[in-house]
């Protein structure tokens, strides 16, 4: 039995769950308004119980994700007072080289994958995308919510720009999550049907050695108590492992089906990308 490393605190796990619940609610209630001419659009609004419900749920979820964001900011400003710029989530010059090496490794140009620390360059980009995207969407969303007040200070063209940014940042976030993040934690043969790190916060030793070797070295050196010798959430995790051994190939099929479905859902909308807000 392999060892596990405790990586995510309970607070971090709760934040993640809160973000993805509000995020999915926002996507489901938002996209029908971005693409009213899509075949799934009317059906989703019906499922939500009408336009008024859609608007209400979108605002509730929006307030929810803003609250999560504010809690996050205040926690790391007030309670956890480590110097901001020296946190492991900050970009360093090494990330550029790591990224180039990762791309080179993916294209078989080099046989050595990069050795990364607490957060890989991809994880840092994901984190800062979420931070930037949420800030932008929250700000523009509030402007659109309180348009009567906002239009006292900004002109209609600026308002339209805000709307456009809200709309396309949302699409970007949705596609990034469904193709990028979902691949790494759901469709990937290593994890399909899904990684449970978001629940127990423990990462397998082999995965640590591959993804975060520098962090592992540091933990072994300074905090060996974080290394646990038992499988977390034994029942469920064992079941997921067993499932993964049998149906990992299905993940690839699901991934491809998902891409196909997205193309089908958006195919008649692609031609409007450049003329629609």
């Amino acid at each position: 039995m392999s060892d596990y490393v405790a990586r995510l605190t309970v607070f971090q796990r709760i934040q993640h769950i809160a973000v993805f619940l509000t995020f999915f609610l926002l996507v489901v209630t938002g996209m029908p308004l971005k693409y009213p001419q899509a075949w799934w659009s009317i059906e989703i609004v019906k499922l939500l119980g009408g336009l008024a419900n859609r608007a209400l749920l979108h605002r509730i979820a929006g307030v929810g994700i803003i609250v999560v964001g504010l809690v996050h900011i205040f926690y790391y400003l007030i309670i956890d007072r480590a110097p901001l710029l020296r946190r492991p989530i900050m970009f360093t010059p090494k990330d550029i080289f790591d990224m180039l090496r990762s791309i080179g490794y993916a294209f078989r140009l080099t046989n050595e994958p990069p050795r990364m620390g607490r957060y890989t360059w991809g994880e840092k980009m994901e984190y800062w995308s979420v931070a930037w995207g949420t800030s932008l969407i929250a700000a523009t969303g509030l402007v659109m919510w309180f348009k009567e007040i906002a239009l006292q200070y900004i002109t209609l063209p600026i308002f339209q720009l805000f709307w456009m940014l809200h709309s396309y940042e949302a699409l970007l976030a949705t596609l990034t999550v469904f193709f990028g993040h979902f691949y790494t934690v759901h469709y990937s043969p290593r994890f399909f049907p899904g990684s449970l790190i978001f629940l127990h916060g423990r990462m397998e030793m082999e995965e640590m050695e591959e993804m975060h070797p520098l962090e592992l070295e540091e933990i072994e050196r300074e905090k060996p108590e974080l290394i646990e010798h038992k499988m977390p959430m034994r029942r469920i995790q064992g079941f997921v492992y067993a499932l993964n051994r049998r149906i990992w190939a299905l993940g690839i099929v699901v991934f491809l089906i998902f891409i196909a479905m997205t193309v089908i859902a958006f195919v008649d909308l692609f031609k409007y990308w450049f003329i629609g807000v």
Partner: protein
Amino acid sequence: MRRLGVMRSGNLKLVLCLVLIISLVPLVNAQGIDQEVPLDPTNIRDYCYTCHSNQPDTRLNTPPREWSKSIHAANDVTCDQCHGVFHSKLRKGLTKRQYVAVCTKCHQLDGSAAGRAEPGFYTLGTQIANPPKVSFVHGIAREGAAEPAVCVDCHGAHAITDVDDASSWVSRENIIQTCGGRGESECHASKKVADEYGISNAVESYLRNTFHGRYYQHGDKDVPTCRECHADTSSDAHNVLPSADSRSPVNPANVKKICANCHGDKMLTAKITGSMHLDLSKVPLLLSTATKKTRPYYIGPIHILTLGKLYIIQTIAIVLFIILLLNILDLSDKIGEKTRGTEEEEGEIEEGTEEGE
């Protein structure tokens, strides 16, 4: 030439026929549609229905079917009042000019005849003959343009019902399609018309680039359609004018009042500039080379919405190249790892059993 030859040959039958036809001409009134017909309207309807209702050809029976449900049928405005009684003259329908003449017979500005008083109709009626400089926009045949919209282009010819009736062409349910253009007429849903008149593709931009249009497509009953902003329906529904005209409801000086109708009095002090009808295909990707720059959208040579357009490109680039490409490359790696892993496991098991034996 051949015909002359026949006449010279003295064909008696033909000459008699010609005489007969010529002798009938006084009966067929030369003034056509303006002729008072001393016939009972119900009779004339039955007369038309002989062919136009009992035949299977839809081209023949559609007009009376539509008319029978119309507000004109309810008010005993029968076929002859618009078409006259002389089939040979009107079998190909009315021309645009004739339509105006026909409708204004009853629908006058002063309301003296039947029908409501509509200033738009009046100006339309006089404009065709002598177009003034600025007036009802649909009544003006602009320079180099085709014929303008007349009554029937918006209201339909036979299926005219009350504006509050859902089946009316100008009802809330149908107005978008009507302004977009029905039948053969290309109007505000057509890029050709938009370019020709130098206006935006209004229906397209309404449906795609306004919340009003998006809610409308979801069946919202409260959002404004064309007429709530472009025609002041409380006084004169025909007062559709270019936004540059100071009498237009969407003129910059008036538009805030229109917004305030739904959004409240705060809108009276809002900074409403630019256009609700956004056409992003006209937004440049980088700097604009256009000589005519609409003021509120440009900061120097930069179009405000260029940033939004760059965001679209960013979306496509990130999703396609980084995520899809890197993931698919990673996939082959992980499949290799997985299949290798299974072989090793099986190998171990086999070794184990051997040792056990």
